[in-house]
């Protein structure tokens, strides 16, 4: 039941989008943050074979079944997180990057992130003035159960504050910012440790960027189906 093959015909010199029929899992091993359970990962392999050629391309990725919810609590005004329906007390660390000269090795990532897990942390916040972290970083967070709060590149350099006053309207090229944001999301979106996208550091991006990010990152309508009582039929990861 976890293997599926479909036939496709793709016109020459064209690019198409294809959605597989959903795969069903009974009692899957869930991915949990550090301290709440195992970080169960499944290996997903996608292969495309072309008649007359053979295997044309192959892609694989580790995937974890988990559902992350976050919202502002009315009573406390604080942000609450739930993972797989369970409330989690967040113990987080702030992260800029692993090395100021960007000598970013898998070994260094593994050491740094294991250290966070050993400190009993369960979240890392990637600050908006630093990097959109790399897949190797996220792979380590997947393995050690560190949730990641990933910010886009908006800081005090782009909000009209400071001395001298910074550029008040964000980066000069808003289309470029959004292009980079979309590409970064595509690069990182399959990692179970990725918990939250945030517009920037301690502030809201310029209106047009913020609106575009909210639209692009909104829930897909497919997952908004509700039963007669208004309850979602399925709960989105």
């Amino acid at each position, binding site marked *: 039941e*976890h*293997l*599926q*093959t*479909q*036939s*496709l015909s*793709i016109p*020459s010199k*064209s*690019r*198409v*989008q*294809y959605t*597989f029929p959903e*795969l069903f899992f*009974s*009692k899957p091993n869930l991915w949990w943050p550090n301290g709440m359970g195992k970080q169960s990962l*499944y*290996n*997903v*392999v*996608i*292969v*495309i*074979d*072309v*008649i007359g050629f053979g*295997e*044309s*391309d192959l*892609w*694989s*990725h580790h995937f974890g079944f*988990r559902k992350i919810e976050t919202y502002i609590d009315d009573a406390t005004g604080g942000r609450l997180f739930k993972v797989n329906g369970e409330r989690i007390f967040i113990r987080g660390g702030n992260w*800029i990057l692993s090395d100021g000269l*960007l*000598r*970013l090795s898998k070994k260094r990532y593994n050491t740094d992130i294991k250290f966070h897990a050993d400190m009993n942390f369960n979240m890392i916040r990637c600050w908006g003035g*630093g*990097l959109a972290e*790399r897949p190797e970083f996220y792979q380590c967070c997947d393995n050690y159960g560190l949730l990641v709060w990933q910010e886009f*590149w908006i800081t005090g*350099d782009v909000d009209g504050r*400071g001395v001298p006053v*910074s*550029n008040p309207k964000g*980066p000069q*090229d808003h289309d470029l910012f959004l*292009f*980079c*944001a979309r590409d970064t999301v*595509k*690069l990182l*979106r*399959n990692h179970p440790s990725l918990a939250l996208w945030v517009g920037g550091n301690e502030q809201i991006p310029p209106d047009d960027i913020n609106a575009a990010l909210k639209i692009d990152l909104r829930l*897909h309508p497919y997952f908004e189906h509700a039963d007669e009582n208004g309850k979602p039929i399925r*709960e*989105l*990861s």
Partner: protein
Amino acid sequence: MAEQHRKMSLDSGWLAARSTEVEFSGTQLTTTHPPPPPPTTSPIPPWMNALVPGTVLGTLVKNKVIPDPFYGLQNESIIDIAVSGREHYTFWFFTTFHCSLLENQYCDLNFRGINYYADVYLNGHEISLDKGMFRRHSLEVTDIIHPDGHNLLAVLVHPPNHPGTIPLEGGQGGDHEIGKDVTTQYVEGWDWMAPIRDRNTGIWDEVSISVTGPVKIIDPHLVSSFSDDYKRAYLHTTIELENRSLSTAECSVSIQVTTEVEDDICLV
């Protein structure tokens, strides 16, 4: 970690040189007239062994041209891009690689991150890469790859357009000019960090070559949903497929999900 079909990382054998000290064009560097400097253990100046992926500053530290900025006050002895000008940290990166293609195979040259933009030369052909630190570049180079498998690659990397200046007293984000670009912003210095003199200019993330057949898989998207109190789960998968050939591709596309129950034993 995502794996592409027949992917080869280009993470060794790179040379680098300051652009103002190189007398050849990118086309000349990547053709046999004149012959380019081959990657060696002792390259001829102005070429030096390069750190790729990495930054210009990382390469200069590796070659002991400048001291490591993170020891003592050594960062003070490294010239800042605001003083030196952007040309000082505009660098050539050069390497060679082998890649031979069979019939109906296609080749991509992939950059996962360049800060800030670049001019790529492969076997004499020029391809300009747009600005932006946080974007991938995937270049189809099937028709440029040499049939004998020996390929010459040179990349001229330019710093951010607004590197800014650092006030004498330092401070949060320097003069904030760096924020005009879509790049990392701590590099002008922050309350916890001295300025990075080259503003992290460089081929800072993975470079690779990937070879596929006529149809390529692009950016799969995996989403799970749950019901019955997490006893039932569904995996939703969407992919993009690009057919690069001149004929319709009749394909079978498959997805398989396995889990490792013990070392080297997988449950399908």
